[in-house]
């Protein structure tokens, strides 16, 4: 019962053709994708005269709002690579926000990250006990943890934060991280951005957002992306963990302790969701815990993971894209948001060319129809309803699932119940 049931292409009788060789390594695809997205945005910004699309402020908001999504997505990778679906990320993230506010209030921002992580990991532990030890359906357990996470934090904040902040729904503000900027470099980029030259100014604006007022949280998150990639794909432990997600019975027969690896994976997943909660608390201003603060970002993290094909680099890209959609809402005017439709047209146009080059006539035609449709929408409207902007990640995810479900490759035994010694 994986997230995407890929139907076998050929029956057992026929030989499956060897998979077409992937021409580019993953990092090259990542860089090409980034260049393409920045290029499309820069072109849109130039053609529609909306500099807000690539401004420093937009990039800073993207980073602040993308971090919780990225960390949740990483949590999703850890759990699902070991074969455990984790819908409970949202609940674990809520626990993390409370823990971060509590730790941050008493001991400062670094401890906020640690306590957030511990609270999230506790949520992960509950999920692990229910699903690994007792074999409960992963999704049901996740739904229960989302209910529990919300209930426990509400209870605890009424009990502990109300005397401090006179409000059962908020925590008192906690101290934020000291941010730092690469001043000289940022100033130079700032000059370039103000010069308003095509492409260069846009790239400068986006880069400047990355190097001014950098929070240590960004560094932590980037390190965690690298660590996740390294541990899961380049260590013995990671290989064993992933083997539990692909074929637990085979892993068991090779002497891998499947329960142990699944436990570690799910607890790590909760810990990452907890850090995501801490990032959310530290990134909001003032830095407080607030009831309903997570606003289903745990699910968006899961969506980023699917967008990223269950891999850290792809998840980073997905989180960046979804964080951008969220961040633009804060920094830009409705007209700038409307200009995004123009970006969609350019992107669809590129897709048409790509598909024609690959001789995929039907997909190319569908993309062309989509491009024309969106352009008509762009031409006849003046602004995009703000109400839909927060839901761009969800719509993108549905489109990706509808168009590319066959190219996504989730772990083979994702969500499949496993009992020691009961393999066939």
């Amino acid at each position, binding site marked *: 019962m994986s997230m995407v*049931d890929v139907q076998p292409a050929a029956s057992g009788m026929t030989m499956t053709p060897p998979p077409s060789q992937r021409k580019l390594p993953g990092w090259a695809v990542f860089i090409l994708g980034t260049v393409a997205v920045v290029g499309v945005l820069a072109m849109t910004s130039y053609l529609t005269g909306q500099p807000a699309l690539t401004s420093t402020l937009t990039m800073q908001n993207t980073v602040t709002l993308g971090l919780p999504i990225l960390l949740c997505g990483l949590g999703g990778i850890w759990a699902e690579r070991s074969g455990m679906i984790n819908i409970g990320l949202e609940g674990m993230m809520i626990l993390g926000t409370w823990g971060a506010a509590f730790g941050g209030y008493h001991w400062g921002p670094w401890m906020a990250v640690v306590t957030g992580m511990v609270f999230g990991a506790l949520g992960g532990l509950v999920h692990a006990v229910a699903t690994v030890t007792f074999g409960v359906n992963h999704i049901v357990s996740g739904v229960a*943890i989302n209910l529990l996470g919300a209930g426990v934090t509400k209870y605890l904040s009424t*009990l502990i934060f109300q005397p401090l902040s006179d409000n059962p729904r908020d925590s008192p503000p906690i101290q934020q991280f000291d941010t730092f900027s690469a001043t000289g470099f940022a100033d130079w980029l700032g000059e370039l951005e103000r010069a308003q030259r095509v492409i260069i100014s846009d790239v400068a604006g986006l880069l400047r957002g990355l190097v001014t007022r950098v929070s240590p949280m960004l560094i932590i998150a980037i390190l965690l992306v690298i660590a996740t990639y390294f541990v899961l794909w380049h260590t013995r432990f990671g290989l064993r963990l992933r083997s539990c997600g692909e074929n637990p019975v085979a892993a068991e027969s090779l002497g891998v302790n499947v329960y142990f690896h699944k436990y570690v994976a799910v607890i790590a997943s909760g810990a990452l969701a907890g850090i995501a909660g801490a990032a959310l608390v530290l990134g909001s201003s003032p830095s407080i815990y607030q009831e309903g603060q997570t606003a289903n970002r745990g699910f968006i993290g899961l969506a980023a993971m*699917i967008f990223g094909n269950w891999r850290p680099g792809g998840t980073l890209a997905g989180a960046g894209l979804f964080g951008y959609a969220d961040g633009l809402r804060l920094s830009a005017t409705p007209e700038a948001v409307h200009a995004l439709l123009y970006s969609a047209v350019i992107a669809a146009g590129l897709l048409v060319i790509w598909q024609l080059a690959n001789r995929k006539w039907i997909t190319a035609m569908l993309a062309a129809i989509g491009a024309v449709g969106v352009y008509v929408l762009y031409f006849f409207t003046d602004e995009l*309803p703000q*109400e839909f902007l927060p839901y761009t990640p969800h719509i993108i995810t*549905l489109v990706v699932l509808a168009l590319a479900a066959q190219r996504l490759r989730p772990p083979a035994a994702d969500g499949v119940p496993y009992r020691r010694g009961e393999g066939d």
Partner: protein
Amino acid sequence: MNARLRSSLLAPVLAVVFAAVLCAIVLIVSGANPGTALGAMIGQVREGQVAVDIVNSTAIYMLAALAAAIGFHMNLLNIGIEGQYRVGALVAAIVGGAIVLPPVLHWLVILIVAAIAGAAWATLPAILKVTRGVHEVISTIMMNAIAFGLAAFLIRRDQFGILVGNNVTTEPIPSSGQVPGIDLGSKGTIFGLVFLAVIAAAVYGMVMNRTRFGFELKASGLSPTAAAAGGVNAKKMIVVSLLVSGAVAGLVGMPEILGRDHAYTLNFASGYGFAGIGIALLGRNHPVGIAFGSLLWAFLEKAKGALDNVGVPKEIATIMQGAIVLSVVVAYEIVKRMELAAEQRRVGQATGTAIAPAEEAAK
């Protein structure tokens, strides 16, 4: 029959007891008396309109749980009830406010519109599931979020929203579309559509146990391969059960809208969908079990207000609900394993005694 009843009651009772003990421990650790808390909640039932509120909420939870249970029979996890009932309520309120028909006909039209809108919101996940193999959980989560966006957009004042006092609502439904309730004076009014929930539960029980459709649904859920071998079209069953589940989900908002609010308002209740999933699990997809589960849920939800008076944060009720869901599924697993072990022991003993005399005779 007696043993069957005992084994099916054991797990939910164990779970509720375990959740209660857990909450009692939480209360003791935070310095409150669980006995006082429970007493306050039970005492609350007799206060004001709480008893009637519990009855009304029970009906709403029942509808949500029935929607979830239809999916569960097929091993489909319709997480999307949350979005489906929101869209159903919104569309039905807009349509209901725009037309004028004779009373009973008007109700029926609104209910049908709600069911169709709920089913429509489940269509995309159903199509993605059967054509592209996309798991329904992930697509319905996305549809839930989009439903919130759609609702926020459609209720804008330049779309269908109007300002009533400080609240933005849709055009009020005229009196011909309002379903009268049972007025109990100061105790409140029981929604007329409480009976809709009862009827829905009865129809659900009938369809599941007495019709070919119910049989095929349950067979597909228990063993998709066996059902396919028996001539059940698996893809058709997936689409039909998701759409029916969505249609029932579309009705969830109706008791409140036709019985009390007469419009879709900005502060339309949320969270019924996830509660429905928990209740369906607690009631083990059985209509009577669902009714009792809904009653328990409604009691926790409506009586928790009394806890603030005795100095206990009322959110302990939410913890209790989450703990019940988690412990009931764990309890089912434990009971299942115990029964399996007992069965194996019994078979072992039976075959053991069957062989022993034969061996004696051979000597």
